[in-house]
């Protein structure tokens, strides 16, 4: 089975622009989470979506938004890009219907560079 997939792999934008990142979860997984990983740091939680509803949100400004589609894929949108938004954006999927299913499995990430 395919793992979590993300697109694009790399992205270069300029300050003030908007960007959309995409994620497809592991088949059968209904929950998608987004993380931002700045160089040299651990990932920081941005959002979690489950069954198309936002279940959790980290400490990020309203410029960050996301949504989940009926097929459980997800998009992360960032508006009015700042230089500090340059990071690796990771998507993770899980099938949280039981204790054993809370494990999150990560995709390869999208490297966003803001110039």
């Amino acid at each position, binding site marked *: 089975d395919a793992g979590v997939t993300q697109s694009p792999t790399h992205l270069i934008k300029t300050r003030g622009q908007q960007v959309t990142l995409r994620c497809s979860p592991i088949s059968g997984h209904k929950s998608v989470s987004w993380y931002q990983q700045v160089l040299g740091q651990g990932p920081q939680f941005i959002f979690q979506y489950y069954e198309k509803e936002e279940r959790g949100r980290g400490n990020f400004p309203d410029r960050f938004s996301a949504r989940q589609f009926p097929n459980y894929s997800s998009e992360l949108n960032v508006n009015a890009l700042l230089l500090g938004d340059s990071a690796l954006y990771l998507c993770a999927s899980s099938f949280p219907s039981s204790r054993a299913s809370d494990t999150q499995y*990560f995709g390869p990430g999208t490297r966003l560079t803001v110039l």
Partner: protein
Amino acid sequence: AQTVTQSQPEMSVQEAETVTLSCTYDTSESNYYLFWYKQPPSRQMILVIRQEAYKQQNATENRFSVNFQKAAKSFSLKISDSQLGDTAMYFCAFMKQGSGGGADGLTFGKGTHLIIQP
């Protein structure tokens, strides 16, 4: 809020040696999960091992095992017979146990860069 601390920014050992990575955490929660993830230069975050806080038995996965001390809030990772392919960043992570797979997401430490020397 939870915090996760990894006090070793970098470690280096010879191939075939055993190495232990340290992790401490702080939480007021009683029910939670702890994880170790590996991130090689390819950037893909790979699950190494998972521990449920309600289990007293330490988790093991082949060459990887943990020492989980709940009272001390300590969760170290031991890698036996280390291999060149183990070279990577290792992140300790915490997740509250709850509906929906943890609506607060994972809380990560800053990572330990492990280098396996030939």
